[in-house]
């Protein structure tokens, strides 16, 4: 870790995106950083992440501030650390990335990891497509267009009071559950979320994955939804509206992924 001042992040919650389908995680994290006006405190020198440089995309910041491939933002009053990742993971180094992240977690004595990601909506199964309430309605030809599109996975969270749906376990073509732990869950287009969750589980590190079933055109809406759910759980702040950085408006207007992701 570089820097002249040793920062104490013991007990902080770590939030980070998985580079995923439609870049929903990264957009959600940018919106979180922008809304809470978080400051960059550290650049991670992980060579398993491809290099990126840009000018800071956030509001209310010095226009000369730089943004790097992977860096840490801090909100000390809420004890939140956010890692924003802009560079892709170098080919063949996904496990190295996960190992680096978990080493960082242990070294800084953080409290838990929360990953924001997306699941390619095209890969949903029937229940994920139509929802549990209407699942039996198929037989009656009374099907909703879509059911709840939010899911979670957690090593610690019991979401009964949140009414969240846990991500369904994967099944083989005979509709039997997969026995191998590593392949119990399938997060299509979810980046390293599945691998990170499995490795964290093996290492007994508290980890939670929050994901949305997302398709092209739903990025901004679903990034917002992820933050609403996160705040519903953590109750970090009273936010009427999450503020997407102005620089991401290009996404909305052109429907193309901004080059910073």
């Amino acid at each position, binding site marked *: 870790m570089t820097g002249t001042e040793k920062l104490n992040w013991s007990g902080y919650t770590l939030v980070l995106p998985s580079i995923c389908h439609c870049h929903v995680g990264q957009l959600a994290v940018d919106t979180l950083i922008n809304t809470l006006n978080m400051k960059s405190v550290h650049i991670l020198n992980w060579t398993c992440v491809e*290099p*990126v440089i*840009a000018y800071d995309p956030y509001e209310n910041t010095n226009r000369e501030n730089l943004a790097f491939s992977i860096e840490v933002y801090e909100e000390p009053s809420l004890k939140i650390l956010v890692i924003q990742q802009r560079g892709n993971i170098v080919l*063949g180094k996904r496990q190295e990335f996960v190992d680096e992240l978990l080493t960082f977690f242990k070294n800084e004595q953080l409290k838990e990891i929360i990953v924001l990601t997306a699941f390619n909506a095209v890969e949903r199964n029937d229940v994920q497509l139509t929802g549990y309430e209407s699942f039996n309605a198929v037989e009656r030809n009374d099907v909703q267009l879509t059911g709840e599109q939010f899911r979670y996975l957690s090593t610690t969270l019991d979401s009964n009071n949140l009414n969240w749906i846990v991500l369904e376990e994967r099944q083989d*073509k005979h509709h039997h559950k997969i026995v191998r732990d590593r392949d119990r869950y399938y997060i299509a287009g979810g980046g390293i979320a599945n691998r990170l969750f499995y490795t964290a589980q093996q290492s007994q590190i508290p980890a939670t994955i929050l994901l949305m079933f997302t398709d092209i055109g739903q990025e901004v809406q679903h990034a917002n939804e992820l933050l609403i759910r996160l705040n519903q759980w953590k109750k970090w702040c009273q936010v009427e509206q999450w503020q997407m950085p102005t620089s991401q408006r*290009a996404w909305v207007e052109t429907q193309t992924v901004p080059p910073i992701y």
Partner: protein
Amino acid sequence: MSTLYGHDDLASEETETIDSDEEDQQRSSRDPNKLPFSIIWRDDLKNDDIKIPCSSLLIALGATASAFAFTHVLCNYDLELIGYGTDEKISDDGSTETKSFDQIKAQQYSTQSVDRIYRLPSSSFVLIQLNSSIKSDRIWPLSDQILNKFNFSNLAHSNPIYVIQSRLSMDYVTIAGEFESKANLFIRYIKSSLIPIDDKITQAIKPIEPPNAIRGLAAALFTRLHQANIPVIVLVVYQRHSSVNPDALKLLQRILDRTSPTLKQYVPSTEKTNKQLIRLASIQTSNMYS
């Protein structure tokens, strides 16, 4: 077992493993006939303890920047070759001939991209030309290999390192969602915070606006230099096509002439016409088959 479409095995009944480590290994697997791309230094400079003094550094990445380096620097000065990039493997039977540095420098119709490091003997000016496509897992090691070889202690904040490259203008996005003024050719910069905000570069051209970003070797070099508190500017020429554009070369020369008092002397303006520049540039960037 035979099927309607020929003899083949049935697909395994086992469920496919996803996101496996084997898949990761396949993704990172390398051509067995190639080495990881790296810089070969001249024999007298090979020793790791030797640091090459550098008071001015110009790094040209990609075809257009490489062509600029050739037409405006190499054609006007007799620089010595001190290193070159390669991934060639010397076969065990010695059938691959190792070229001498003089042979490599003399090569004009190269059959592979030009990746060379030059120095002007009379000064500490260094020119780096890198044209090859670099695999993602080589970007960080290569940038470290290059920068660790130089001694930048004589580099002043008023004399930053310049990295030049080009990109397609259609990739540049503005906040309003429109492509930059529908222009075919424009230039943007990103600079380290060591360089004052009222520097000549900020008065000459606009910065790269969010959400645009720079990736690849330029980003790696910038990051390392920034972390080492060494001033650096990346200039990106955005042009309509990826082919070498003589107007882009002239634009680069004008900007460097205006913003860098130190590099200005090494990149004189040229009376050559666009046609001559294209011909010159094609010498540098062509191979036997194009």
